[in-house]
């Protein structure tokens, strides 16, 4: 007997236990089947969605941003190819090695390396991360050459903005920057989610942002686990941004900028009085918008921000100054239109006028004697306008001020515009908490006190006076074009299409004649500016009218008046602002110019010559007749 008796026992124990075990295994296998059922039947829709999300990636195709041209078709803002190094990695795997090699090739520096590593580890679905933008050609070559050692690194061709005219157009064109939360408000364009997108921040780049941006295309791609595109499933082409043709004449803009070079800080704006087109707009000092396009450094940014001349501000629209004597145009019109005075009314000037305890001085201490409104404008007599203001009253002056564009934003559309201030009884009660005084009316009459305006508003005032009382609005955009449609240049306009302001044309003519005499009569405050002086040929077609203004920065004390302290003896930042507005030609006005030289002391002295030269140059060039920009832009 070779098998012992126990074998039967252990065989039956084996059988029992084996069956028990088999039962257990059946249970476990059923558990597997149950799990399969749960995953593949119960939750299958959810997993199917997740699988699709894994597989399909919607990539936006950024459109190229619309170009900006001047009225002659000269490019002011263009797109430049921007070679970017991008990197991807599978959840940060191997990122250190790649970043180290990139550092050797591009000298990234420690902080950059840390940023890259962080972004690479964080990036979901292996979304590419920007390593460096605006690569030099040599750097691109270096990366391409070392491509085998740089897994996940690739060169991406994007676009960035270039401003060929640089500082000359800094305030008009502005610049672009990364999309901020503010920019996102009210816009649901998916393009704004692109990390590489640049959004208009200042100037026309901002005001025309929604036109310039264009529409995103999209490409649906199948991607593998490391984000590499396997094939394209669907593609919708985007639409490039709309091109913009501006009203600016670059040559004139440069002429103006050259004239302003001698000045520390100031602003000039040239406007077509018929159409409202802004022909030139200069605010000095400016900045180079290309700094922003390239990526401005912290220190450069701080320098711009901290400079006392505020180079980032467009003083034409954002600078507010007391308009000074230039405002006498409004006072005169208000007094005439409200019949407070008539064209023959003569008001006396004895050098000063007393109101209660306060003495209001005329700039000409000796007194002008009795003057009518035209003579008073020519001599810029303060006493005449104190009295005219008193007779017209603050309400009538305020009404006329608003008609002429003060105290409200224009329709120019540039960001950062200030509405200035056209004071009124209600305004003073609300903001100052005091009732309106007669003295306030006196000050308002000569554009001082609470009255504040921007150089643009002064240009608008001059334009509305010059065009015969039409409510022209400043305008920077001559035309928009997608580059595909036929562009038909509009026929030049000679009559304003803007609504009339309903001001008596005779009164307007009277004020215009006063401004003509400012320049062209021997009594005029700006007689030295007349174009037939200093041997220049008298050209009737270039005859222009103007009005000087001096805005007090600091009240002249009685002591200073007694001591005869002159403006030159004051520190620069306490000197008066010099203002000058003018229009021409006198017979058939077409252009208005507004000039402010900050702390330039006398209007006729510093601002006047600039205004005269700019206006004469404008009249000679007559840019309103030029429409060749349309053809040039259409051919792009």
């Amino acid at each position: 007997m070779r098998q012992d008796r126990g074998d039967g026992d252990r065989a039956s124990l084996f059988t029992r236990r084996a069956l028990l075990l088999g039962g257990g295994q059946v249970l476990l296998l059923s558990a597997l089947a149950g799990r399969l059922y749960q995953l593949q039947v119960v939750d299958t829709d959810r997993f199917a969605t997740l699988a699709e999300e894994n597989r399909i990636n919607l990539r936006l195709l950024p459109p190229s941003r619309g170009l900006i041209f001047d009225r002659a078709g000269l490019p002011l803002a263009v797109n430049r190819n921007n070679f970017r190094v991008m990197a991807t990695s599978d959840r940060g795997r191997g990122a250190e090695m790649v970043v180290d090699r990139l550092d050797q090739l591009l000298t990234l520096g420690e902080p950059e390396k840390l940023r890259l590593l962080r972004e690479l580890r964080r990036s979901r679905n292996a979304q590419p991360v920007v390593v460096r933008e605006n690569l030099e050609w040599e750097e691109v070559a270096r990366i391409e050459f070392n491509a085998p050692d740089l897994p996940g690194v690739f060169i991406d061709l994007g676009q960035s903005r270039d401003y060929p005219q640089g500082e000359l157009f800094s305030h008009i064109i502005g610049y672009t920057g990364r999309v901020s939360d503010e920019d996102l408000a009210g816009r649901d364009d998916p393009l704004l989610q692109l990390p590489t997108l640049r959004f208009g921040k200042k100037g026309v780049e901002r005001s025309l942002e929604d036109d310039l941006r264009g529409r995103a295309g999209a490409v649906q791609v199948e991607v593998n686990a490391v984000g590499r595109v396997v094939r394209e499933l669907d593609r919708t082409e985007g639409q490039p941004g709309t091109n913009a043709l501006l009203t600016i004449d670059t040559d004139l803009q440069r002429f103006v900028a050259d004239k302003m070079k001698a000045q520390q800080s100031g602003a000039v704006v040239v406007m077509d009085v018929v159409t409202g087109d802004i022909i030139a707009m200069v605010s000095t000092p400016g900045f180079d918008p290309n700094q922003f396009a390239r990526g401005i450094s912290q220190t450069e940014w701080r320098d711009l921000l901290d400079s006392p001349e505020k180079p980032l501000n467009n003083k034409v629209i954002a600078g507010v100054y007391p308009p000074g004597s230039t405002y006498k145009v409004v006072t005169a019109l208000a007094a005439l239109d409200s019949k407070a005075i008539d064209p023959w009314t003569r008001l006396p000037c004895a050098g000063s006028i007393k109101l209660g305890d306060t003495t209001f001085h005329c700039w000409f201490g000796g007194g002008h004697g009795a003057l009518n409104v035209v003579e008073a404008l020519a001599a810029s007599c303060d006493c005449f306008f104190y009295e005219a203001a008193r007779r017209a009253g603050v309400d009538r002056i305020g009404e006329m001020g608003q008609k002429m564009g003060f105290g409200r934003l224009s329709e120019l559309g540039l960001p950062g515009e200030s509405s200035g201030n056209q004071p009124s009884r209600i305004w003073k009660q609300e903001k100052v908490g005091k009732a309106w005084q007669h003295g306030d009316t006196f000050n308002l009459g000569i554009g001082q006190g609470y009255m504040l305006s921007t150089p643009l508003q002064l240009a608008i005032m001059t334009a509305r006076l010059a065009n015969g009382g039409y409510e022209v609005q400043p305008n920077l955009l001559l035309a928009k074009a997608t580059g595909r449609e036929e562009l038909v240049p509009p026929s030049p306009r000679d009559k304003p299409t803007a609504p009339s302001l309903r001001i008596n044309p005779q009164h307007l003519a009277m004020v215009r004649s006063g401004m003509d005499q400012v320049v062209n009569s021997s009594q005029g405050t700006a007689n030295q500016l007349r174009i037939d002086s200093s041997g220049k040929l008298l050209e009737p077609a270039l005859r222009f009218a103007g009005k000087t203004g001096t805005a007090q920065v600091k009240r002249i004390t009685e002591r200073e008046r007694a001591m005869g302290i002159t403006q030159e003896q004051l520190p620069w930042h306490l000197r008066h602002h010099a203002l000058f507005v003018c229009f021409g030609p006198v017979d058939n006005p077409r252009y208005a110019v507004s000039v402010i030289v900050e702390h330039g002391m006398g209007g006729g002295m510093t601002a006047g010559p600039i205004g005269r030269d700019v206006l004469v140059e404008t009249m000679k060039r007559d840019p309103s007749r030029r429409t060749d920009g349309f053809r040039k832009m259409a051919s792009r």
Partner: protein
Amino acid sequence: MTALGLNEPAPVSFPEKVWRINWGLVLVLTAIAAVGVVALYSAAGGRFEPWAARHGIRYAGALGLMLIVALIHPKVWLALAWPIYLIAMLLLVAVDVVGKIGMGAQRWLVLGPLQIQPSEIVKVAVILVLARYYHNLRSNQAGQFLWTLPPLAIILAPVALVMVQPDLGTAMMVLMGGAIMLFVAGVRLWMFLTAAIGAVACLPVAWSFMHDYQKKRVLTFLDPDRDPLGAGYHITQSKIAIGSGGLFGKGFLHGTQSSLNFLPEKQTDFIFTTYVEEWGMVGACVLLALFALILVWGYSIALRSQHHFGRLVAMGVTAMMFLYVFINSAMVMGMLPVVGVPLPLVSNGGTAMVSVMFACGLLIGVNVYRDAQLPRSR
């Protein structure tokens, strides 16, 4: 009980032996390997290279080996059990000392043109040695505590060595396969209970000995959302692939998750996922049913064996197959932590295929020699 003399079988002729080979089982194994070829063909993006063709060839070779093993008399295995075990242990030690680094753990040994994974050999070796041990034991001894100590050592020694590599999957398989063999061999139930309680008590200690990546796997298993892009990524993607397959699958070569490489290790440990994504729940059930058929065969062979060695070997092989299939598929479905256990005959990998087919050869051999007389050596 029949008379002892009648138990003496007539010698079995060679054609009889060949006839006794479970050809149905061979067919099932071939069907599973065919599923493997199909899945690997798909995993390679619709190409026979680099996996599917080699898989088929390898199976053909392993099939030959299996048939040869099946025809070898169990007494040979009884005699070779210890030498095989010792060689396997030596190889394990060698792997720990000079093994080539693969997948963050030392599991491979390079012998000339061969790369072998001793942990696969040791699974078979433990079955043989345990079967031999209990075969030689008297019935009443099997249940006793003292007689249980040597088999514990037989199991734990290789477990310790593979843990060092570290290879949690193989360690689990040897441990659980060994436990199953002890269970059917008749070890008293209280010892299992004590061991279970002891294991639970030792968990904190085991935790402290675990490698970081093992800890991470366990933690990730307990809560896959802990780190959906890191350690939990594999299991999440695998579940997405299986779930998105649905009832009928996405169709052959249309599995997006695997073809776009969202699946990790898609040709080895996650081959089940690749297959199920394309063939759906229907395909999964067919494959699991094929494996279940192997188990049925295994049980019937074990129960029909006239000798204890045969019973235990058959049971051990069946348990090994079950553990392979269960651990692998439960792992890819997120029911178990991710441990490196392949799906037998489907996953790409030579040593595992050879060891599984070798084991199946032993199983069939038990059937061929089911009525052989195997004396106790003591």
